[in-house]
């Protein structure tokens, strides 16, 4: 009997407690709604309406003054208000709510400026020119059937494979070799790293000069064409020079027999080079090679030049982390230097390579500045990012522009997935 009574008492308490926790939950829910949506919304709208109303009514100077004072105190009062509201919540919930208070705006802004545009872009990619009518998959069909788009996708692929492989390979070799230097390692590495400090537009401008072409008989200011027109003799036996004045006489390169300058960034194949001049379609190897997209490769080199330094620095750190005992053990066992590099160093830096490859892949997919500054996508050198802008601002086709940007987005997804899996693997280890 007494025991029964005790249980009943216990029951009552439990019920009482659960009622109390229910009401606490309800209270905290209410606080959450008010603190994170109702209050910020009212606060924001009040500001927005205030400024919309006064913008055209009061003098500019006063408006600027008000905008700075009210605008800068906006966040302060937002947090102060939220803080006050949360303080009404039950004690046990407050800590979590305060956390949410600080993360909340970040998530909200991320949603507003990242998530919403992404959804909107996907939506627009199924719409027509001005986004007015649905066109189904038309834009995607266009993306894979249009000749210029096909070339753009091909270029993007060449860039992805070429830039990532070359930058990693050269970076790795340079890092390994510089690690072996007795002295001057820091200077050597700084020189290789230097291009990283130049902006993409700057690097492109530098290389634009290297590849520059001017019509004859002008002096060739481009490095490659300068070399090309200098040297050799014309058909009369006179030397060819880049408009150099010797003994008061100008020696040019316009006569027959001198090598003529070429527009490097306009060469979509190798037909301008003597060894490929007489290739017939029957010669399958050469006719394949003659279509080598020289200008795309020349532009790619700019990016490799820029990012090799970055890859080198990262690899250098990874190689330095390899314990010397292991490499020494390898040497004692009689392994060659190449063998040590492949069998000892490589497994250690493998995960670093993946990190660098990921970074470079994403960078190449976003590559815009190099093509924009040099050829602006003419002569089959376009990349997806530039094509996207062309469709948007040149052809005013919002649907296609969105489709191209979705293609870029889709190409990044496998890399993200790969990285997630790799991180999980690392955790498992």
């Amino acid at each position: 009997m007494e025991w029964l009574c005790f249980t009943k008492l216990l029951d009552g308490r439990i019920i009482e407690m659960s009622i109390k926790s229910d009401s606490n939950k309800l209270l905290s829910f209410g606080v959450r709604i008010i603190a994170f949506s109702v209050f910020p919304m009212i606060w924001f709208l009040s500001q927005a309406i205030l400024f919309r109303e006064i913008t055209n009514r009061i003098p500019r100077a006063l408006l600027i003054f008000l905008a700075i004072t009210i605008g800068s105190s906006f966040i302060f009062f937002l947090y102060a208000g939220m803080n006050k509201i949360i303080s009404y919540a039950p004690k046990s919930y407050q800590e979590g709510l305060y956390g949410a208070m600080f993360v909340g705006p970040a998530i909200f802004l991320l949603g507003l400026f990242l998530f919403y545009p992404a959804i909107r872009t996907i939506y627009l990619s199924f719409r027509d020119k001005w986004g007015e009518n649905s066109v189904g998959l038309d834009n995607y069909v266009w993306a894979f059937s249009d000749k210029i788009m096909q070339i753009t996708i091909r270029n993007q692929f060449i860039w992805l494979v070429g830039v990532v492989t070359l930058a990693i390979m050269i970076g790795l070799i340079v890092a390994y070799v510089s690690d072996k230097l007795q002295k001057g390692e820091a200077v050597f590495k700084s020189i290789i790293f230097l291009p990283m400090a130049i902006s993409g537009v700057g690097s492109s401008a530098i290389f634009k000069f290297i590849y520059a072409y001017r019509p004859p008989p002008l002096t060739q200011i481009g490095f490659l064409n300068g070399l090309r027109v200098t040297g050799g003799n014309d058909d009369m036996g006179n030397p060819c020079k880049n408009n150099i004045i010797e003994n008061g006489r100008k020696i040019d390169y316009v006569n027959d027999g001198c090598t003529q300058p070429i527009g490097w960034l306009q060469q979509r194949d190798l037909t301008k080079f003597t060894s490929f001049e007489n290739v017939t379609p029957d010669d399958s190897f050469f006719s394949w090679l003659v279509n080598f997209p020289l200008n795309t490769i020349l532009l790619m080199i700019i990016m490799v030049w820029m990012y090799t330094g970055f890859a080198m620095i990262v690899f250098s750190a990874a190689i330095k982390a390899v314990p010397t005992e292991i490499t020494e053990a390898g040497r004692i066992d009689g392994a060659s230097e190449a063998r040590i590099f492949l069998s000892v160093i490589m497994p250690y830096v493998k995960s670093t390579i993946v990190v660098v490859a990921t970074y470079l892949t994403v960078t190449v997919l976003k590559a815009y500045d190099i093509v924009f500054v040099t050829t602006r996508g003419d002569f089959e050198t376009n990349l997806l990012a530039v094509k996207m802008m062309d469709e948007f601002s040149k052809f005013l086709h919002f649907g296609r522009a969105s489709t191209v940007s979705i293609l870029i987005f889709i190409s990044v997804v496998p890399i993200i997935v790969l990285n997630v899996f790799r991180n999980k693997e690392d955790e498992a280890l």
Partner: protein
Amino acid sequence: MRKSLIGLLLILSMVAVACGNSLEGQEVIYFGAPATDGPDGQAIQSSFDQFTEDTGIIVTYVGSENFESELLAQIEAGNPPNIALWPQPGTVRAQAEAGNLIPLEDLGVDLEEYRSNFSPYLVGLGEVDGVPYGGAHAVNLKSIVWYQPAEFDSRGYAIPDTWDEMIALADQIVAEGMTPFCFGMYSNGATGWLATDWMEDIMLRTGNGTTSYDQWVNHEIPFNDPIVKNAATYLSQIMHTDGYVVGGSDAIVSTFFGDAQNPMFERDGNGNPGCFMHRQASFIPGFWPEDAKEGLGTETTFFPFPDMEVPSDTVLGAGDMWAVLVNDEATQAVVDFMLSENYFDAIASDVAGTGSTRISAHIGFDTSKYWSPTTQKQADFLKAALAANVFRFDGSDNMPPEVGSGSFWSEMTELAVQGPGYIDTALDTIEKSWP
């Protein structure tokens, strides 16, 4: 206390605004492509100096290299400039169709007067369904060939009046071991426009002249029509005849259009210029080297594009066009001023000192006001053509962007590279891409 102070300030400032002259101090934003501090931007801004002094309306010209995309963003955001200056009238019509522009009639413009001042053809370029939206601004002249009289005289060459004479002269120059034509059409992201200009000039002088030209631009005849093919064949004759073009026909696409004429100013080891003739618009002296610019009008000048199958006074040109996006009283006053005869005074007399060579589209404008004799000569040409309504606007600018700044450019580039055998493929590809 503080609240009441702010309130007081607010009321006071409203009163101040309400009591002032309605237009005094009003701001009008004028947005365009020529850079704000570039020669054209400064010239445009200078044209409003007197106006601002007279009316108190502050007109601010803002230029941006990314004019098109920035303007789109501004319109989407609901914050457009009062007036925008488009480099191509085709875009004005597209914006009018999208409902972003205000018809000139709603701005109090007398359309009859406007049409007679600027020629019905030019006004028509900014019309949608017969309603004018765009205001004609400046025009340039494309039907000209630049040459150096001294080099012609010393060799006994005569200025060619017809296409055949030009070809004969070119053959003579080639036979004498020199190169007749400068030709460069590389232009970042717009490679090909120079060849489209050539095509347009030839189209105006072949087939049925302006009639077939208009049909071609409006796609009333297909792009691969025999008339167009005939024109392309003429162009190919210049581009692909051995020895006609500086650096050979492969160099056409590699040569930056701004550098294209430099061989004419350079002398090779034998003292010969790199080329003798260069067909390019009236704005090209802006790209010349400094010492060549000094010889504009004396050392280097131009002759009209030679006659072809249809002898005529037709003139090819281009130009920009403005339109209004925000209608208020101040903007209306600015529009009135921009359509008036003396709007171009400051630009023509080069008040800004930037050497702008822009030419007014106003038929009544006194051409003796231009500071440069070369510009005067060009303006006379244009004025006569506009008055006779035989001025034709750059056709590619009036085609849909997919063609006019897409396939027409890229296929002309391809034609230059591939040779005369590519003409049919090029025209068929352009025809197929017409939306």
